[in-house]
Every structure is written in C-alpha cells, then in structure tokens.
C-alpha cells in the first residue's frame, strides 16, 4: 500500500500542474502589452500602438482569415 502511494504522489503532482496550465489572456488591471504589426489596412494617420492610442479606449480583436 505504502509503495503504491509513493508512486502515485509524483503522478498526482504532475496532473495538478498540467490542469493549472499557462494562464490565458493578459493580466486584468495591468498595463496593456505593446504589440507590433507589419502592415495596416484602413488606417489613416499615426500607426496604432498602445502608446499612440493612450487617451482612447481600445478594443483589440484577435482574429484570422480562417
């Protein structure tokens, strides 16, 4: 019985680490991470960035064409 428990312990520990996996999303209440981009469409004026958009509320949509 004891031997089994010792063997099970590391497996259980691993399982709990796997389920508390990497957090999704940025820190709420924290500063917005800066991002870079190659080309902008429908943009006139300054290149949008966290720095250039300060003073505005920003909705960032992460998307793909698929």
């Amino acid at each position, binding site marked *: 019985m004891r031997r089994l428990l010792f063997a099970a312990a590391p497996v259980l520990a691993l399982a709990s680490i796997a389920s508390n996996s*990497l*957090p*999704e*999303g*940025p*820190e*709420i*209440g*924290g*500063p*917005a*991470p*800066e*991002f*870079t*981009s*190659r*080309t*902008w*469409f*429908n*943009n*006139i*004026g*300054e290149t*949008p960035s*966290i*720095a*250039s*958009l*300060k*003073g*505005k*509320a*920003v*909705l*960032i*949509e*992460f*998307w*793909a*064409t698929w």
Partner: protein
Amino acid sequence: MQDEFGKDGLVVVALSDEEDQKVADYVDKHGIGVRVASGSNGSGQYGVRGIPASALLNPKGEVVWFGSPYSLSSSKVKAALKGAKKSGKGGFLSMNLDAEYGGKLKKAAGDAEKGALGKALSGVRKLLADEKFVEKEEAMALETEITDYVSLLQAQADGFLESREVLTAQSIYSALGDSLKGQTEAEAAVAAMKKIDKDESLQKELKAAELLVKAQSEVERRGKKKAAKKFESIVKKYSGTKAAERAEKFLKTL
C-alpha cells in the same frame, strides 16, 4: 462597435498574425471598415489561445477585460470609455502630441490635438516671430511635430493614390487642404487634388469608388442578394478600376 462608440473615444483594432496578401484579400472581400493589421505579434503578447478573442483597454492603457467578443457587452465598453478622448471634428487630423506644451503654446497644442493643423501652425509661427517670446525651442518642437504629421498624412495619401484608392486619397488631401489653409503646407494637398480633377483615369476610379460605397450601404439596407445588381453594374461599367476588383470579389462570396 467602432461605428457605435467611435465618437465617444473607442478605437477598434483587429490584429492577425497572417501575411499581408491574405489579410488584404479578406478585408477587400468583406469590406471590413476597422483598422486591421497583418503580421502582428499581438496574440502572443496577449496570451491568446483561442480565436476570436478580444481585449478591452481603458484610456490609461490598462487591460480591463479579456474574453470572447461575443460576450462583450455595451455596458463594459461604456465603462471603459470613461475619460476617453472623444473624436473631435478633426477626425484623422487630430494629433496625439508627444510632449506637453504649456503657457502660450498650450492653445496651439490644443488646436493640433483637435485637428486644426493650420490654426496650430499659424499660432506657433506667430510666437516664433515674436521677439518677446522666449520658449523658441519648445515652439520649434511643436512646429516640427505638426509638420511631421502633415508629411505622414501626405505620404499616406500619395500611397493610396498610387494604389488607386482615389477616394481615400482625395478625402485625405481634401481634409489637409482645408485644415492647412493659409499655410504653405496646404500647397501639396491642393496640387494633388488638381491632379486628380484633371486625370480621366483617376476620375473613373473615383466614380467607381463612390458607387461602391453606395453598393456597400445597399448591402446593409437590403442584404447581399438585393445589393448584388449594384456591384454587377460597377464590374460592367467600370472594369479595370480598383472598385470593380472589389465588387467582383464581393460577388464571388454570394
């Protein structure tokens, strides 16, 4: 969201990590109106693991919400808008100044932020010409910030003109010309507009683009199928124009 809350100070940016052409084609086909970026590292930076996802930021640059765009309520957006700089009449002419300008320069700086670029330049230049005004370095810095911004807009308009986005180019030149009246910087925009007026093929692009805008509004009013005729007409009568290309792409999605 951009349409609804744009005037209240909301800016929507759509970030994709894909290549330029893929994103460009998609934007063309679907007539997406918000600012879109290709080749962006945004999803990595924001820990995005499932697409689509959205992040909402307040005017201080803090993340106030993250999740599925379908679960974002108007009330959350309204709350984030508190203290946001509203979009003045200046539109894209409105500047985000790098430095803070005080004293006699405050008015000119305020004008620049509202998009009254000609007024701002005139104010700064009056101060520079005034012997009694001592903050010449600050004034020159503000003047440079404004003229640099004008150059950026002019270059963007030239770029749009080159890629046959004549309607967009013209709207930028027109706004610059109006805003910069009385300053030498207006000349380039005015000259560009004259060039567009005199050029037959640019006029054709312009007309086709105007019809495309009407066709796109028709889609909103009456749906894709009923608006199709308008797109077909552009393809027929204005073949070879950028608008006709877009109209064709749209018709393929039916």
